[in-house]
């Protein structure tokens, strides 16, 4: 029935939704097409779980609603979820052995809201264990490969999400971003992703890593698609997430086409220092030039505590993680060790067997900085500097409307490239951590290619609640460039 000129998997979310509404393609056809692609690209390691029966049932229900005229705005659009969101009908593992075989009794709010809008779930996507990592190599199940170069990492922690979208195994995916986990894999895989203001998206049913930082957001191939998805996944969840903001749902696509003539783009000098590799700098400066052609003005600014954001983040996030992950005790759900001497021994062996290296490291750091005698010196000190970092942004936004810079200092590195050196991963997060600590919306937009013909992402950071302005600037850039529509060879 589908007769458009492009193959189905090259259609974006908005295009697919329109084709579905127009009856040019059915939800069942779309679901079958993408499931077929997921099967034929299994070696990329994008998916952790697929259940064709669940997907096809959802697709048939979507077709029924399309026929009955009760379709939601995204009716029949296939989408896959990062395996950090719990789902009733599919396993939820958070990329950890600890949750192998776990079945949630409920759906995460983000999953439910997207289902209410009509999306059809293709499956669950690979990620670093409990979203801790920047290469997807911390997944307990399998690494994922970057479709642009199979020997390189896709980034993390939402690595499977970025792979699925870049390789056209799904038109879009959900991701979560605690310290850059949407923006960095989007950058590494040449796709578009946005993390909204902290509190916009409900954390209910997002397996918790660091609760004062975790945010959900969409990953897709264009700013337009991200806007559409973001409008459908945000919104207050007053009874289920105490940090969810009481803000009405918004149409984030409303100002996509606005002119950016006169837009003041802040350029933080700390993002363009010697730590930035030359290829990334060239690509980022190239798209900043495109913004200038459209009438935007580049304004030099300073975010003086950029480097400090690394220790601050890697104190706060592990502290919160050590607390959140204490629930994995082998009693109520998840793994339990087979042999043990007593209750405490059961806890210790269960957690030793169920958690991977990076998770254990963060639990250890977090436990230490929260322990008696160290809490003030580390955790409270980090939270104080967190405020100073957030204040720095408010100072910067006095002279600019949004901030632009690189997402990461380099393009995607080789699988195994950081060896057994967790610090190398931490340091590479430098440009995404400041906005995470401040709870600001941030996005990654394809900005060209660097070394090894690997994608480079431009990071856009907005003030609180200015997602539509970020999406507007990104959309205008995508009207003027075609980096976002390029695809990896062989895909």
């Amino acid at each position, binding site marked *: 029935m589908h007769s458009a000129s492009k193959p189905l998997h090259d259609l974006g979310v908005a295009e697919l939704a329109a084709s579905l509404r127009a009856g040019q393609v059915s939800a069942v056809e779309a679901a079958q097409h993408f499931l077929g692609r997921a099967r034929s690209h299994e070696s990329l390691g994008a998916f952790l779980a697929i259940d064709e029966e669940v997907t096809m049932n959802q697709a048939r229900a979507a077709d029924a609603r399309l026929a009955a005229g009760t379709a939601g705005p995204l009716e029949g659009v296939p989408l896959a979820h990062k395996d950090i969101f719990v789902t009733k009908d599919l396993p939820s593992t958070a990329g950890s052995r600890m949750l192998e075989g776990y079945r949630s009794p409920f759906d995460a709010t983000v999953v439910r809201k997207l289902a209410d809008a009509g999306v059809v779930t293709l499956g669950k996507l690979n990620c670093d264990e409990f979203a801790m990592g920047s290469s997807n190599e911390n997944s307990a199940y399998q690494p994922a490969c970057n479709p642009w170069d199979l020997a390189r990492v896709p980034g993390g922690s939402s690595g499977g999400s970025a792979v699925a979208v870049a390789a056209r195994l799904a038109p879009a995916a959900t991701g979560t971003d605690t310290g850059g986990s949407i923006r960095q894999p989007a950058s590494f895989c040449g796709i578009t992703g946005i993390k909204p203001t902290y509190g916009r998206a409900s954390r209910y049913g997002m397996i918790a890593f660091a609760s004062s930082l975790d945010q959900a957001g969409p990953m897709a191939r264009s700013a337009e698609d991200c806007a559409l998805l973001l409008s459908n996944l945000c919104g207050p969840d007053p009874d289920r997430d105490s940090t969810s903001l009481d803000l009405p749902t918004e149409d984030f696509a409303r100002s996509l086409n606005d002119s950016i003539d006169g837009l003041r783009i802040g350029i933080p000098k700390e993002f363009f220092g010697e730590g930035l590799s030359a290829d990334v700098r060239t690509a980022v400066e190239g798209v900043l030039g495109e913004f200038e052609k459209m009438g935007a003005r580049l304004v030099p600014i300073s975010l003086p505590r950029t480097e*400090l954001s690394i220790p601050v983040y890697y104190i706060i996030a592990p502290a919160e993680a050590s607390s959140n992950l204490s629930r994995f005790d082998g009693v109520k759900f998840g793994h339990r060790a087979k042999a043990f001497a007593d209750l405490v021994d059961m806890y210790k062996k269960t957690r030793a067997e169920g958690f991977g290296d990076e998770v254990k490291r963060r639990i250890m750091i977090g436990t230490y900085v929260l322990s008696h005698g160290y809490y003030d010196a*580390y955790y409270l000190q980090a939270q*104080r500097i967190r405020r100073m970092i957030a204040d720095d942004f408010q100072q910067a936004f006095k002279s600019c409307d949004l901030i632009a810079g690189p997402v990461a200092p380099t393009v995607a590195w080789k699988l195994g490239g950081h060896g057994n050196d967790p610090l190398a991963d931490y340091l590479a997060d430098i440009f995404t951590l400041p906005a995470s600590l401040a709870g600001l919306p941030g996005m990654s937009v394809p900005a060209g290619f660097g070394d090894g013909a690997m994608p480079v992402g431009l990071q856009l950071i907005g003030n*609180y609640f200015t997602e539509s302005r970020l999406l507007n600037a990104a959309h205008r850039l995508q009207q003027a460039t075609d980096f976002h529509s390029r695809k990896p060879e062989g895909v």
Partner: protein
Amino acid sequence: MSLTPDDIARIANLARLELHPDESERMLTQINGFFGIVEAMRAVDTTGVEPLAHPVAVIQDVALRLRADVASEPNQREANQRSAPAVERGLFLVPKVIE
């Protein structure tokens, strides 16, 4: 500042993690490497700066919401216990704690 093998053992006990000796050793090196970059943070003068928990509190008051203390969920005992390692007669089983 540098952690010792005793510190690692103490923290692992608090965190309820059994570490093999080689794991403890690796952990000690890596965590000490990490605390090398934390020193820069400790040197910052933060006198009079309030700790920030909810980031949006930088620009507006954020009160953590409380909901009414009423049951909002139906009984889902079976669904909730479906993924438990050991259950008997609707109860979670743990090793004996009281003699």
